């Protein structure tokens, strides 16, 4: 473990951040500033989306309608999903990519800094527009985040607003991923070959390609909704020769790769955190890369497993069942590789590692329910029930969100130059890990017992597990308040972090001082530094 002198990079670019809010943040071109803005934005969206989830769980705490009109309930579920997916998880990953990718590949910044600024600043406007739909006549979109017609086109003024917001988010993600791709393909320091890139860069590279392929498809689908509603086309209406199910096919052709867009960078973070705290290189690096690429490829040929009940031909159902089951293979390879990385390691349990371990266990549970959902005959019983809700929350909350938290706890000392309050972070972990299971595990039972999803009220036989789930939700929601407190304290001060921060950390970002200088790798790292940072 080469503990290094850290000033090997020549910090020739001495000017710091620009003065003044507008010059520094509105006109930001520095990848670290933009990364910070993305992460802060994602944090705000998580709390807004989380507040909506609390409203949903409060209504579902017991049978009968206590707080919400059913239409408003439907708005809440729809907006919760849109805020969490497009406002929370995706911008959080772009924020981490902005911060870490240039530092990890020895580039001075993202390849296209002004584009980077643009792709961030679209987002606040997109979400202002989206949240303002809550106040227009007819209320905000209430047809589910999947926007299935004909239901979604029954919406009032909110429909064009939501579609415009989705277009803006799409443009933002496409520009963001273009930036990631060209940074990784063209801006790597000489000597950082593709197979020497850390897995976080690899998974992001594949994610970025997925985004560029599928965001235009989503944009196309919602454009067709718009023309159906306002310009008399009938893409999705049988009365003019269209087909409502066509929308579902197009939507899920976007939607399934989107699921992997949310989770692949999580695989990257976990693949960095586990080796660090096991003090052992990642097991099977190349097979991890191939597994990620296979998952990316398979994501394009499984989409119709979201819609087995629309009445597809038998051959179609068979095809999508088999391809869906195949995804278990590369995902299994990943889980086995992570387990093998911990085997014969020297494991310590700092907060990032705790979140990564919770990810391993709980994401695997989400994988199991995913496998069950792939079985078409059984899926007819699971489809559109709380079993599905439990499944995708297991892969998204302890999957994506826990990894985002792990990544932030992992790199925060490098960003701020201070260690955070470990005790507080561990409290955050234990409360999250316990409550997330109280929240989502009972939803498996509810689904199997026959409770459909997206209903504001339910038969009394579902009361008990719903009450448990709601208690878990409130506990989980409250425990997340510890996270901004821990981050705020760490940014304000604390024990000075070493350059390596974690004993077992490897990679170019740890060869920089803590906090990372405003301009890093102005001179590309030397081969010696690259070799020291590289583990494979």
């Amino acid at each position, binding site marked *: 473990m080469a503990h290094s002198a850290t000033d090997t990079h020549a910090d020739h670019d001495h000017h710091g951040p620009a003065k003044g809010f507008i010059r520094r943040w509105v006109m930001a071109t520095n990848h670290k500033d933009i990364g910070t803005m993305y992460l802060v934005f994602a944090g705000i969206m998580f709390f807004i989306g989380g507040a909506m989830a609390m409203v949903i769980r409060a209504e579902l705490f017991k*049978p*009968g*309608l206590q707080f919400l009109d*059913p239409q408003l309930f*439907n708005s809440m579920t729809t907006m919760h999903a849109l805020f969490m997916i497009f406002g929370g998880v995706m911008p959080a990953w772009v924020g981490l990519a902005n911060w870490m990718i240039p530092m990890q590949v020895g580039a001075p910044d993202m390849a296209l800094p002004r584009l980077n600024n643009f792709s961030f600043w679209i987002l606040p406007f997109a979400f202002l527009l989206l949240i303002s739909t809550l106040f227009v006549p007819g209320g905000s979109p209430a*047809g589910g985040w999947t926007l*299935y017609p004909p*239901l979604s086109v029954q919406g009032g003024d909110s429909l064009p607003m939501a579609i415009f917001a989705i277009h803006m988010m799409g443009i933002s993600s496409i520009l963001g991923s273009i930036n990631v791709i060209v940074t990784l393909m063209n801006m790597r320091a000489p000597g950082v070959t593709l197979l020497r890139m850390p897995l976080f860069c690899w998974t992001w590279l594949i994610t970025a390609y997925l985004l560029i392929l599928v965001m235009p498809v989503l944009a196309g689908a919602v454009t067709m909704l718009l023309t159906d509603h306002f310009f008399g086309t009938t893409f999705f*209406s049988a009365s003019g020769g269209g*087909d*409502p199910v066509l929308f579902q096919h197009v939507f899920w052709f976007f939607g399934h790769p989107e699921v992997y867009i949310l989770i692949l960078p999580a695989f990257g973070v976990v693949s960095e955190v586990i080796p660090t705290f096991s*003090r*052992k*290189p*990642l097991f*099977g*690096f190349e*097979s991890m890369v191939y597994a990620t690429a296979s998952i990316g490829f398979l994501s394009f040929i499984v989409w119709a497993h979201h819609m087995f*009940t629309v*009445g597809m031909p*038998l051959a179609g*159902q*068979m095809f999508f*069942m088999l391809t869906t*089951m195949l995804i*278990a293979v590369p995902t*299994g*390879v990943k889980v*086995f590789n992570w*387990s*093998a990385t911990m085997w*014969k*390691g*020297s*494991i310590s349990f700092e907060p990032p590692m705790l979140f990564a371990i919770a990810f391993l*266990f709980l994401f*695997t549970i989400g994988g199991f329910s995913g*496998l*069950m959902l792939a*079985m078409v*005959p*059984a899926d*007819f*019983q699971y489809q559109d*029930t709380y079993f599905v809700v439990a499944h995708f929350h297991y892969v998204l909350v302890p999957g994506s969100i826990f990894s985002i938290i792990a990544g932030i706890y992992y790199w925060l000392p490098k960003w701020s130059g201070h260690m955070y309050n470990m005790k507080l972070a561990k409290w955050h972990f234990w409360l999250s890990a316990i409550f997330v299971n109280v929240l989502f595990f009972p939803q498996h*039972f509810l689904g*199997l*017992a*026959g409770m*459909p999803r*997206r209903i*504001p*009220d339910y*038969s*009394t*036989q*579902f*009361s*008990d*597990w719903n009450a448990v789930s709601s208690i878990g939700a409130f506990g989980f929601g409250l425990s997340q308040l510890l996270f901004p407190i821990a981050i705020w304290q760490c940014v304000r001060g604390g024990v000075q972090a070493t350059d390596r921060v974690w004993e077992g950390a490897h990679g170019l970002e740890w060869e920089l001082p803590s906090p990372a200088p405003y301009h890093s790798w102005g001179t590309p790292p030397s081969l010696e530094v690259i070799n020291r940072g590289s583990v494979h």
Partner: protein
Amino acid sequence: MLRKSGLTGALLAAMTVFAAPAHAEWALNMTKGVTELSGEIYSLHMTIFWWCVAIGIFVFGWMILSLVKYRKSQGAVPDTTMVHSTKAEIIWTVLPVLILIVMAVPAARTLIKLEDASNTELTIRVTAYQWKWQYEYMDSGVTFFSSLSRESDAARQLDSGIDPASVPHYLLSVDNPLVVPVGKKVRLLLTSQDVIHAWWVPALAIKKDAIPGFINEMWFQILPDKAGIYRGQCAELCGRDHGFMPIVVDARSPADFAAWIAQHKTPTSN
């Protein structure tokens, strides 16, 4: 009707310790249902569940063993040369493929049976509306609407002040149930007049979307000794009152069914 469940495990045991309120259900699992195929689907569900448990015991066991055995605090020294093993990687690629094949075979077999809607003895057209169902017996012309029962509808209003527990089968009862004969292969032709809905009765283990402008087909055959009332709900978000368009199937003996048809034919048919 707390069901005997196949699900076990410490977690569940810990969770079921909660004191049960008056109307406690705490149901954990799917039921076997009342058709031959629903039983088959149930066993498929349990088979794959136990496969997942077995794989889980192996994977989680391995992880827990690592976490216990190789702790730095216990003086574990990392073996930094262990970075790759072609043999292991081949094994954990091929083995899952084999397990998947073993699981896919019964699933495919059941699926083929499910899709075989030939030789049905009774056809009912089901038309979905926001937010009720219309049933039309194609052979006899009996037609009626089926919507949420009045008691449930009163209790489900915002701040109605009516305790849902006091309403029998709250949200799962209708004014006019769908009456079908047991032992006969019944075909449903599904369509919709407005948005997409989905017809689902868990005990029959069938669910399919009702799509405006298109007709979907599905079938069920209730076991001859399983006459009774079976309840379900719309399963596809269909707007404001999506949660309030239940389905009730009243399965009767063929003789009782014929009597019911004869009774309803004259006044309601056209």
